[in-house]
């Protein structure tokens, strides 16, 4: 690559190349967010459990 416009244009394959990389990004980000949220949820659930049992 020698210029930004060449980079964006991808020799005429811009649609296919950038859609591929966009989808890859979506898949990676989704893979990070899912376990993050699952952990938050589980920790919150366990927190409630522990508190409930201690007040008993």
């Amino acid at each position, binding site marked *: 690559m020698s210029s930004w416009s060449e980079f964006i244009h*991808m*020799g005429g394959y811009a649609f296919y190349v950038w859609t*591929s990389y966009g*989808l*890859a990004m979506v*898949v990676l980000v989704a*893979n990070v967010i899912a376990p993050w949220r699952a952990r938050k949820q*589980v920790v919150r659930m366990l927190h409630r*459990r522990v508190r409930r049992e201690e007040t008993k």
Partner: protein
Amino acid sequence: MWTFIHRLASPKHFYHLAGRMIPWFAWGCALLMVAGLIGGLWFAPPDYQQGDGFRIIYVHVPAAWMSLFIYAVMAGASAVGIIWKIKMADIIAACSAPIGASFTFLALVTGSLWGKPMWGTYWVWDARLTSELILLFLYLGYMGLQAAIEDRQNAARASAVLALVGVINLPIIHYSVVWWNTLHQGATVSVFGKDDIATSMLIPLLLMGLAFTLFYATIVLMRARTAVLEQERRSQWVRELIKSL
């Protein structure tokens, strides 16, 4: 060595060890991926036949590698779980499935986006594409079984059997381009023998492959840690940990 493996099989030790390893894997993944992307999208020369369209390789091939690698890990962990009844192995297998499924999906979709400009079609029912699609169904079937069976041990056993039967598909995918006449091109990188690619194109591919592997390691450990907390919720150390969080 054996004491190390024993400790690893203990959920408590696994939880803490994984917690220490995750940041290293995550940073390694990020650095390698940035380097691989810059190398692949900017510095690698255009292909003499496919021009800049070949750059899809840097997401397509690592995703396809991971779809096979994660399945192999999943099946291996399933076997260990069945034979030695190690809970941690069942957890690793179960936590691998959604990651593997997502990479299989990515490999199929980016392959489709690569096929259109090069072959003139998004999809053909040839050996490589069809066997990779079957791999996606194996992952989804595994996840369906896990979700459908209430009892955790039964779920682990049933899905492990499915995972092990499905292993037969891995060599079929790998050799499909050799055994059958297919539109899909042959292997670009091979462990034994000469690679069919220029060095400036190869290095970013290897960087991306390594980055994806570290990505899987990071995510599977994150998932497994949460699964450990959930399964060990009655034990003293989890209760104390939860209180301190």
